[in-house]
């Protein structure tokens, strides 16, 4: 159905690699995020929001196709999206929306200009390009005077730049020699980091506790940098004539390990990489200042929400995605009691199943992990071999297989089915 004259505008702002807890308003004392704090105060935050697949391309492809990664086929950063799969830009553009994009896209085999009118901005680095992305969005929001409702997408890079801190084995771009001056301000190493053993990054560098703390110091500064740019876009929207007719969504593609469990960056099912912030604002329609810590949601729910508010039918094969609208507007609804995320090891997909209390991981080699998320939020004790939890693991396996029954596997991943 085409968008009607009362169809809202939609602004979808996403950042790259932001942990769910890297927000001052969520109690993190190691950084200042006044702009994201404002978004949370004026909207609803989902505290149990999960990346559909904690890697850039798969997560982003899920945002824009409404499919999980073993459905759309982009299970890692190098595999292509099939040309036949529609994306949000194409779908909404054909149904009465003016669709614009600035900043990071990163969906393999799908040029952004095939789906959106592309605004300038973005460079591959947050420190260099995010200000330009925000400037393009700010200019657009103050000047757009078209007749159609707009769907503006704003893709920031930071805090993804933290990846570069591990590049080159000696980590030469990190100013480790200045750490003495910063010692009193460094955040603590993550609780799951083994300070005695230290760790080695994938690029070969050795990381001790002080270095991991400095890594996180840099990371938080990058979150603050992108907070400022997100704030410019949000303020421009609030100051524009579109303020009360626009749904604003803020999220991240995946989180950042930051030394948790001796790991950096993403790809993991541990919470620091898997959980992401997700907040929505729509004055008068979405509850302001609400923290939803009950409902398990996924990045794949975002396109379903956008289409619901736009009054447009879902794209084909949105098997798992559900609109967050009833949760945002306080309407009674029966919600899922588990959420699944996918990732790959050596191009082989595997999955995690998360309920409110437990998280199970079903590895490609058929091994498993099980964590009690209420009693062990750092995910330090794998309970999968514990007889007392055998039934829990069995139940989570059943949920995994229910999920597989619901999705439509991409031809390449027919073997990535039940466990």
């Amino acid at each position: 159905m085409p968008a009607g004259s009362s169809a809202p505008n939609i602004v979808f702002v996403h950042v790259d690699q932001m942990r769910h807890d890297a927000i001052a308003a969520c109690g993190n004392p190691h950084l200042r995020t006044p702009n994201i704090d404002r978004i949370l105060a004026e909207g609803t935050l989902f505290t149990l929001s999960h990346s559909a697949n904690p890697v850039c391309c798969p997560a982003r492809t899920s945002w824009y196709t409404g499919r999980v990664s073993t459905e759309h086929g982009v299970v890692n950063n190098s595999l292509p999206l099939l040309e036949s799969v529609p994306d949000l830009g194409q779908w909404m553009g054909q149904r009465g929306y003016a669709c614009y994009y600035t900043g990071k896209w990163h969906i393999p085999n799908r040029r952004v200009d095939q789906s959106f009118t592309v605004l300038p901005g973005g460079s591959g680095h947050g420190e260099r390009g995010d200000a330009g992305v925000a400037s393009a969005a700010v200019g657009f929001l103050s000047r757009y005077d078209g007749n159609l409702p707009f769907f503006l997408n704003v893709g920031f890079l930071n805090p993804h730049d933290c990846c570069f801190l591990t590049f080159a084995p000696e980590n030469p771009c990190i100013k480790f020699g200045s750490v003495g001056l910063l010692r009193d301000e460094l955040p603590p190493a993550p609780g799951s980091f083994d300070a005695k053993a230290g760790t080695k990054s994938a690029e070969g560098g050795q990381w001790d506790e002080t270095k991991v703390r400095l890594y996180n110091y840099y990371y938080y500064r990058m979150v603050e940098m992108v907070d400022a740019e997100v704030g410019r876009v949000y303020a421009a929207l609030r100051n524009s004539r579109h303020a009360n007719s626009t749904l604003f969504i803020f999220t991240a593609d995946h989180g950042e390990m930051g030394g948790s469990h001796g790991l950096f960056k993403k790809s993991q099912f541990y919470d620091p990489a898997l959980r992401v912030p997700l907040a929505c604002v729509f004055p008068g329609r979405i509850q302001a200042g609400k923290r939803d810590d009950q409902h398990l949601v996924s990045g794949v729910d975002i396109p379903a929400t956008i289409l619901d508010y736009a009054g447009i039918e879902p794209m084909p094969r949105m098997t798992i995605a559900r609109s967050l609208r009833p949760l945002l507007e306080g309407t009674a609804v029966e919600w899922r009691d588990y959420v699944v995320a996918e990732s790959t090891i050596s191009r082989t997909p595997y999955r995690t199943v998360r309920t409110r209390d437990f998280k199970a991981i079903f590895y490609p080699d058929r091994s498993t992990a099980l964590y009690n998320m209420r009693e062990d939020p750092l995910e330090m004790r794998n309970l999968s071999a514990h007889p007392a939890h055998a039934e829990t693991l069995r139940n989570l396996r059943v949920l995994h297989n229910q999920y597989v029954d619901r999705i439509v596997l991409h031809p390449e991943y027919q073997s990535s089915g039940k466990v």
Partner: protein
Amino acid sequence: MKRRDFLAQSIEATLLTYLGGGAALAARGRTQVDKAAKKRTARVAGTGGVGIKQVPSHVAALNPVSAYLQSYVPPDGILDPTRRQTLAFDIVGWGTGKDRQNVSAPILGEVTVVRTPSSDVVQYEVRQKLGKEEAMTGRFRCRTDRWHSLEEWQYEYVLSTGQENIDRLTRTSQSGKNTGEQVTVRTDGTETVLTCPAPLLCRYGILDMAGRLKEFCEAEHAFTMLHEPSGLRPGQRFRQDAGDVLPGGRKRPIQTILQTGPATVPTHWIVDEQGRPLFITAFLISWALKSIV
């Protein structure tokens, strides 16, 4: 030897000494560096140099520009705060190849700052070009007080695509005025009034106080920084990163002042004995002073 040649060579020697492979590089002598300088001049903005294995330098402040320093020649000019002068900086990137092992330092763009002093203010006319599409032109007026605090500014930020219908949408402009107690910022027609209890600085005003940044390296000397086009960054401070004396008793010829604060990755102002800000190094983006005219 002319004074300016002596100055350039001594600074260069100092910089090279501080680098990881400094001694070996210095031993190659001036001829080698001249060749490198010619190569640098020939480099096109936005392209990278050859990737090199890089280790952290002895001075952490120089880490982000270590690869660039292989061919860096400090400018000849002397900073004279009483005259109208033009300072030009390379905008230097930091990156690695796909192997994530070898480092390169591409020149991404250029900043030109024309400073015009008068009895009570200094005006800075700034042109910044970053990559092919991003340009900023602005005027920043600073007081001649101790901090060179920012009094007024206006700039236009353009992301050019060559398509008029798009460029019209994405152009942004901002002006601002700082009375000392409150700051009024007007962005694309929307006015915001902020209180600003700490001195408000901009990068260009700091260029003129670079030689005495050490005076501000106390915890109580917090300041707010205009970081255009991103906005105001409150809670900033300077700290002296290295002592004045080198091991062996010789006076250190370069000051490294660390700027920290919210939304600021550790950023160094690297200033020579003449008070010239040779480098402002952050993380993936740094500035390198290449000429003073």
